[in-house]
């Protein structure tokens, strides 16, 4: 244990010069050699589409894969709020350093300084690129770009396109990708799921993909493979992720030797529409900008079944304003989420289920007028009304936290390469930039930073060494043996004569994860839950029922395979949450808190990135630690009181 040293390959030099100097010293691949190299891109969300387009523009041949019926449908499309960039257009003192500092502090000092600084450094280029593509960002009357303040920071650095920023950025990247498909430099495979990575002499040299229409298993070879496959929030069953979002590609990479880092760092977003019944398939997020003017409260009486308008002012508990007078309703996501859970667990929750709190705009409407409130939040109110059938102008909304984003992911070095040579990971699928907690409007920034401005350069560190090797062909025996394993899994799933639907097993996993490895964790629950997940894994393989055939569209088969991977991920999350005996960012361990219930970080012992190495079936994974070096900032305790 801990013997293997993870080399992050962070360049030397001052923080401000690292990326610029490193980029200038990176080995180049000549135009002639680029044309001879193929790169496989898995996933075509913000990171994947931007990277595929950029690599193709540079001259590489790219094969891009997505499970959706079009690259335009990747879940990046659902991001609402905006994208941060250190442009300082508002002249409010913003700078690359400030964006870097906010991000590293927001991540509760569990991310790499050099990566985060690079992210802040390229943030401005992203905006320029997207504007040039015709992304219709919000504008001022003078024609310049508009900004807003987001996620509790003190500067206005968030660029946005109404409440659909993710959509517009993704369509921008999709347009760049479409252009390269048209030139023939990108070959696009929609309705394809990557089901395994093919290793040749320990290097990632291809994939096995399943055509989701014909069911055929296909072999694809390449000089390098890039995973841009998003996060794993659906391990909780209910989350704000799309129904198809899954961990399968990253999980196959893990089982082929790529380490998985910080899996227990999962972000719970405080303002989602609450669960309304057992049939619930997913949760809908509402932008946290609502907390700028809405007041959050519950009744002061346990089990209060009165409708909110019957609860008089003096019997309302505005618990965030009470506990955090300085920040009030604007405390960071992790704190707001935990405080809501605390009230509901204590029996003060609202609604039929008792699992929600009120978000009230009455005061805002009284002081600003309904028109102003409507101008700011109209589309969100409309969405809430559409889903719940209630009118938030008349009675308070009900909200509850929901899993939303995963900071953990595949371990990558500064070049974004995993521990498997030739296998890269970008965007949400890697662990790199958000530490233990991601700030609002930073996910889009990281996806596009990796895709447009980092990977296209750093992949050269690997590919420049491969120019003399012969191109691996799918005739290599490794492809056949890997494909055979995939065939066996499909056969095993389809031939099982069980009586449990995939959905019911996934729900069961979700409940175990949510109750024991969700907003707050403790050793006793984690130990118990690890056994439960282990038990569920056995139940899955003995009882799962997957109808249909392998040679046609079979959504249940797709789901079953994904759920089997989520179950295994669940186990590693429990190990990670057990190991990290401190509270930091989104990871709150009940044993490690201050007297007044705030998170207690332990920099002495846990100042590391935990990286889990697959050790075999039914064997606990091995832990490796990458110690974080803070050369520029000094970790301090976050306080929002």
């Amino acid at each position, binding site marked *: 244990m801990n013997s293997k040293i993870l080399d992050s390959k962070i360049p030397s030099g001052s923080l401000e010069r690292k990326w610029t100097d490193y980029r200038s010293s990176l080995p180049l691949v000549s135009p002639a050699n680029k044309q001879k190299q193929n790169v496989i891109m898995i996933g075509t969300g913000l990171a994947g589409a931007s990277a595929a387009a950029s690599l193709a523009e540079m001259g590489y041949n790219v094969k891009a894969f997505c499970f959706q019926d079009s690259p335009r449908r990747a879940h990046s499309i659902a991001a609402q709020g905006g994208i941060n960039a250190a442009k300082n257009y508002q002249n409010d003192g913003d700078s690359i350093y400030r964006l870097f500092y906010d991000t590293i502090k927001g991540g509760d000092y569990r991310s790499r300084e050099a990566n985060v600084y690079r992210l802040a450094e390229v943030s401005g280029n992203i905006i320029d690129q997207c*504007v040039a593509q015709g992304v219709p960002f919000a504008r001022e009357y003078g024609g310049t770009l508009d900004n807003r303040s987001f996620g509790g920071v003190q500067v206005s650095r968030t660029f946005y396109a109404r409440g659909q920023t993710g959509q517009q950025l993704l369509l921008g990247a*999709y347009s760049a990708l479409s252009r390269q498909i048209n030139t023939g430099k990108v070959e696009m495979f929609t309705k394809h799921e990557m089901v395994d990575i093919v290793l040749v002499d320990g290097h990632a040299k291809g994939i096995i993909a399943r055509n989701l229409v014909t069911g055929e298993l296909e072999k694809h070879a390449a000089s390098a493979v890039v995973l841009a496959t998003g996060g794993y929030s659906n391990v909780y069953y209910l989350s704000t992720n799309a129904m198809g979002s899954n961990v399968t590609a990253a999980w196959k990479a893990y089982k082929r030797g790529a380490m998985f880092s910080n899996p227990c760092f999962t972000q719970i977003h405080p303002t989602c529409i609450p669960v309304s019944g057992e049939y619930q398939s997913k949760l809908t997020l509402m932008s946290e900008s609502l907390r700028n003017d809405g007041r959050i409260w519950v009744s002061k009486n346990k089990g209060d079944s009165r409708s909110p308008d019957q609860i008089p002012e003096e019997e309302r508990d505005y618990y965030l304003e009470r506990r955090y007078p300085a920040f009030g309703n604007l405390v960071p996501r992790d704190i707001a989420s935990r405080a809501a859970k605390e009230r509901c667990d204590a029996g003060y929750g609202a609604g039929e289920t008792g699992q929600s709190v009120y978000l009230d705009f009455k005061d805002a409407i009284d002081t600003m007028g309904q028109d102003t409130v409507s101008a700011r939040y109209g589309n969100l109110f409309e969405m809430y009304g559409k*889903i719940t059938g209630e009118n938030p102008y008349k009675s308070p909304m009900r909200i509850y936290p929901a899993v939303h984003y995963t900071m953990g992911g595949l371990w990558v070095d500064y070049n974004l390469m995993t521990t498997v040579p030739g296998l890269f990971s970008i965007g949400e699928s890697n662990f790199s930039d958000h530490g233990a907690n991601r700030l609002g409007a930073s996910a889009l920034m990281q996806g596009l930073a990796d895709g447009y401005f980092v990977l296209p350069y750093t992949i050269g560190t690997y590919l420049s060494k491969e120019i003399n090797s012969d191109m691996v062909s799918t005739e290599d025996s490794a492809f056949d043996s890997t494909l055979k394993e995939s065939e066996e899994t499909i056969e095993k799933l389809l031939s099982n004569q069980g009586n449990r639907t995939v959905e019911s097993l996934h729900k069961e996993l979700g409940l175990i994860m949510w109750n024991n490895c969700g907003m707050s964790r403790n050793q006793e629950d984690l130990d118990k839950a690890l056994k439960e997940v282990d038990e569920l894994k056995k139940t899955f393989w003995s009882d799962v029922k997957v109808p249909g055939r392998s040679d046609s569209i079979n959504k249940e088969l797709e789901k079953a395979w994904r759920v089997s991977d989520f179950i295994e991920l669940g186990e590693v999350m429990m190990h990670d949450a057990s190991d990290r005996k401190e509270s930091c960012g989104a990871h709150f361990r009940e044993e490690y808190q201050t007297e007044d219930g705030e998170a207690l970080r332990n920099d002495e012992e846990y100042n590391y990135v935990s990286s889990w190495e697959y050790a075999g079936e039914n064997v606990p994974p091995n832990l490796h630690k990458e110690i974080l070096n803070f050369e520029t900032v000094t970790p301090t305790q976050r306080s929002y009181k």
Partner: protein
Amino acid sequence: MSEKLNLTLKVWRQEDTNQSGNFVTYPVADVNPHMSFLELLDVLNEKLIKEGDDPIAFEHDCREGICGSCAMSINGEAHGPVKSTTACQLHMFNFKDGDTITVEPWRANSFPILKDLVTDRSAFDRIMQAGGYVSVNTGSAPDGNAIPIEKDKAIEAFNAAACIGCGACVSSCKNSSASLFVSAKLAQYSALPQGKPEQKQRVLGMVNKMDEEGFGHCTNTGACEATCPKDISVKNIGIMNREYLKALVD
């Protein structure tokens, strides 16, 4: 609102593109009115799987009305009876106890049925590849504020760019025309200075591709706008036609 509904669903079942399909009737009891329409299909599918039947195949992903995956006609209307709403955001409190609801895939020759409610909409991607972009390589962009854009123009561009590419417009058009989809992209770029240099090639490329893919012509019925879940305006089609004519005589 918590009164349970008893419904009858008539769903289009089709094994694959080459076989013919038909409606199959399924009673669904005790439907919670807070369910979304897709959750109703989930519940029905769970029942079908348990009974050893093949579940209904349908496209869906974000279930927030933005990815454009879900695509089905409900009682003959694309995405169902509620205006500006995708099927995934259509909730059952919009139906009455005892209702019979017909569910079928998009009907258009350019969107062949793959299975049940799933159609092949890749023609949309191919139209986009024929010009739906600004040719700007990564790294070659000027500063974001170097190109001032009137606020109104930015809003106009945004309104057109809000299209989710679901295909409802094609499905509800009697000619299966893709004009609303194509014109939305063209109008976005036409409102912005970034779109100007390639305007001519773009409109010719995309419109010709649309014809080549077998979509019909627009005869101005406005059915597309009426069923569009994102309220994309038919005015965009006017912009497209004007640009197309200009490009032809230019």
